[in-house]
């Protein structure tokens, strides 16, 4: 499994949406991704990639797309 697949899986499992659906998601777009869901998402990603994100990055993590950009800082590689 590539890191991108792993990343997408965290979203699809947590929010029970298809891979195509989660790719367009923004924070607060769906009920599940509210402030509670956000902290669960962050913990799940930290566990999946064994990283610890900084508080500023947790706040800036406002969409699926933006998350990819942020996780690159922590050495997660999204190259195909």
């Amino acid at each position, binding site marked *: 499994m590539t890191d991108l697949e792993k990343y997408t899986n965290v979203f699809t499992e947590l929010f029970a949406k298809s891979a195509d659906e989660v790719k367009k998601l923004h924070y*607060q777009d769906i*009920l599940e991704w*509210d*402030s*509670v869901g956000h*902290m669960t998402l962050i*913990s799940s990603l*930290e566990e999946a990639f064994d990283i*610890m*994100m*900084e*508080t*500023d990055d*947790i*706040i800036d993590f406002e969409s699926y797309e933006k998350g990819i950009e942020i996780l690159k800082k922590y050495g997660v590689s999204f190259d195909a």
Partner: protein
Amino acid sequence: MTYEEVLALPPFGVAREEKQAMLKEELLHLTQYHQAHCAPYARMMDTVGFSPRRVGRAEDIPFLPVRLFKEMELCSVTKEAVFKTMTSSGTTGQQVSKIFLDRETATNQQKTLVRIVSDWTGRSRMPMLIIDCPSVVRNRAMFSARGAGILGFSIFGRKKLYALNDAMELQTDAIRAFLAEHAGERILIFGFTFMVWQHFCKALKAAGERLPLENAVLIHGGGWKKLAAKAVSPAAFRAALQEVCGAVEVADYYGMVEQTGCIYLECEHGHLHASTYSDVIVRRAADFSPAPFGERGIIEVVSLLPKSYPGHALLTEDEGIVLGEDDCPCGRKGKYFKVVGRLKHAELRGCSDTYAAAFK
């Protein structure tokens, strides 16, 4: 200045002259902003004869009594833009405050909290023990101040453990396992004052248990009134805690749902500190004129954060004393103060006090 620019300033590094000039300017902008966007607020400003020309300092900005948010729906954005409504934790029969948040203000609240609390906890996130039950954040539709407080602070936690189950029983075994897993790490403990007292401190003592929390920092807030009624002073609270969990570092905080984000944390000298992004003004009850440092009066809180609702200058129902400015021995700039109690006749309210009402 944009709020982003304000927030870029160090939280406790702006001295009086610069801070007061900025506050006056930005509070004035907020007042005019809310006049233009919130009709009931505009009418109130007309009634008090507000004129920007008469504002020479931050103290001249008209304040609203915090109680008004219980009686009126005050909102400076369209209904469509409101994405979260926060309520104070009122018990049955009490009216609750309703605070309307749009995305911008909600995000700024979290960012502000991070800026302030990081000054105490550092930048790295810690294993976090939450002295509450998991169900407090489970009902997402109804967000009480207690749930919001826990959630806001969750950002500082890496792994999290709720110390209580939904029957409010202390999960001592789970806590011991959690502490063993994170041995040698600094632990963050968060909870509301009454919860920490009733369900942590007293529960540990009753069970004859001690937890190794020498390397932990406990941040608690939400009101002292109920503990004061039980004759538990802050010093006794701290002593009882250290008896059951070692030399844990303890920091109280003062804050309210009407100005979420801008909290006032207690330093190692026992002083509550105003950050760069907000301030406290103590007023005399007789004529609401600002009281000099050292004099007891009613606490007003001002904040540059509230944009989706007109809550930038609020007269609380608490009494306090400003002790000084820029010269606390802890080195933080800004005013430092203490809260001495609740105004007589004010309703019993506060996150932990509300819950405590059930414990009479």
